[in-house]
């Protein structure tokens, strides 16, 4: 089993409620999710809980582990703040926290997931553009890549997208 985010690019309005929810839930001065404006849509990205996580490979302190449900966790107790994972991740998911001198990373709000509640960012999305889904490898649950996302060949992120549909233009005369 592998959990991952799903983003409907037609629905996301770029309101940044997900960013604010993440900041509030984690109680940090910055958000682990960021919204990037692209041409015609917004990309709301956090950790993609990749199949082949580079952060996991390069960490010299055995800080990362991947649970059976595919969530990649970061053990702050072991982190020395060397920033190797920050540099290695093509999606800039791990972020250095100057207040603690350690790296922080989206853990899909694992404590909420374990209690059957969706992550804070998903709950906060007013248009339900952001969701969590279970990838079983059989069904095609959406596009794996859209313009604006870094190279996915190596790390194989688990995020899936509903690509933006061609929009009709209505002129008021």
């Amino acid at each position, binding site marked *: 089993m592998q959990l991952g985010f799903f983003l409907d690019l037609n629905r996301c309005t770029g309101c940044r409620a997900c960013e604010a929810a993440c900041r509030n839930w984690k109680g940090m001065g910055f958000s682990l999710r960021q919204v990037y404006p692209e041409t015609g849509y917004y990309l709301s990205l956090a950790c993609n809980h990749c199949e082949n996580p*580079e952060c996991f*490979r390069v960490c010299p302190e055995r800080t990362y*582990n991947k649970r*059976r449900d595919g969530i990649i966790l970061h053990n702050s107790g072991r982190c020395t703040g060397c920033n190797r994972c920050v540099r290695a991740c*093509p999606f800039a998911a791990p972020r250095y926290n100057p207040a603690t001198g350690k790296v922080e990373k989206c853990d899909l709000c694992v404590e909420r997931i374990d209690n059957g509640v969706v992550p804070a960012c998903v709950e906060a999305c007013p248009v339900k553009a952001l969701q969590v889904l279970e990838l079983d*490898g059989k069904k095609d649950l959406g596009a794996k890549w859209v313009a604006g996302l870094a190279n996915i060949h*190596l790390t194989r992120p688990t995020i899936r997208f509903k690509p933006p549909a061609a929009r009709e233009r209505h002129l008021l005369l």
Partner: protein
Amino acid sequence: MDQQKWCQFMEIAAEGRGLTQVARLLGEVSGLPAVVCDLTLRLLAFQLPAESNYNFGDYLPLDLPFQAERQGEFYLGELKEPAIPYFMVPIGREPRYGYLFLLEIGADWQVYQEPLRAAALAAMVEMSRSRMAQETERHYRNEFIQDILYNNLPNRDAVVNRGRLWGWDLTRPHLLVVMELDGRNNQGCRKTVWEQWHQLLRFHLGRQAPEAILADRSDQLIILIPLRLTETGINKSIIINLVKSLQKITTSHLAGTTFSAGVGRFYENVADLYRAYQEAKVALEVSRLLRRRAALTFFDELGVLRLIFNQGEQELEDYYEETLGPVVKYDTEHNTNLVETLAVFLFASGDHNRAAENMFIHVNTLRYRLKKIEEILSQDLRQLEVLVNLYTALQVKVMLGR
């Protein structure tokens, strides 16, 4: 066939007396040699007449997929060597478990449909029962291996202690190999081939490296091979020979199917295997990006590829255009093949004679073309720096799928 015989087949299945008994009863009922095979045509049980001198070895001499005449659910055909006519029925439909054969079949094959059908049903019960036990074991083994490979266990002692429950000595250092079938098309057909491949490798690995641990995750097979560290490091030839032998077996048994493998670095501590796993996957992915087939790639031999594989596509395109762009443009405008010449020259390690031989051209023609490349790029091909840049650009070209 009378109802009593049907009951006998069902009794064997219900009591779990094994495939040998099914083959024996089928042999008695039909009076013909009966053979039960798995999906890779490996012999699981057979009943041959005492006077027969068949020696098939481990596998029935037949090519997959079957080149046989179909009669409803049955197949009529001939073995390869010796050329014995057979009558066959697949065991199970979805999932399929194996095949049941009656040999030395004559023109009266219709008579044997009923016994074969009853025996296939009994064999299916037997095989599904043992498959269920195997699947349960496989599930728990995979979960444990996954915990090791995703750093989910707290320390080395926890790994070693849990390994003991499985009868594995994880105090010894292990090398990790990740394997995946080449070609990613046709998922339906691929699933059957994957299952056959898994069965094949499990059997042959058990023979060639009985101490190796086999696990699977999504569509990859993972092998952990215990190795002894020598003064000169690890002996890679052991891995190379093993993987090549498995590749040869796969190609010969599965109609030209090939697989590629990636090998992580060697770590003495089993708790560091998670790192080797990620490295092996990177090595495999890089070989995929270079569109190699049946490749064995070691992470520690990736060289400059390790630095470029993780670059963004735009950076790679820029580098490629800046380094090789003028030659590509010249080729397009003048209908020449200078890029191909350069690639052959570099992959022949700069050996003019070998490169000319590989391109079926005279060595002077090759020299002329290389001179032309030097003119276009205004660079000297004898400089190591230039050669390295061009070699890297050619690798980028493959990665970009140009």
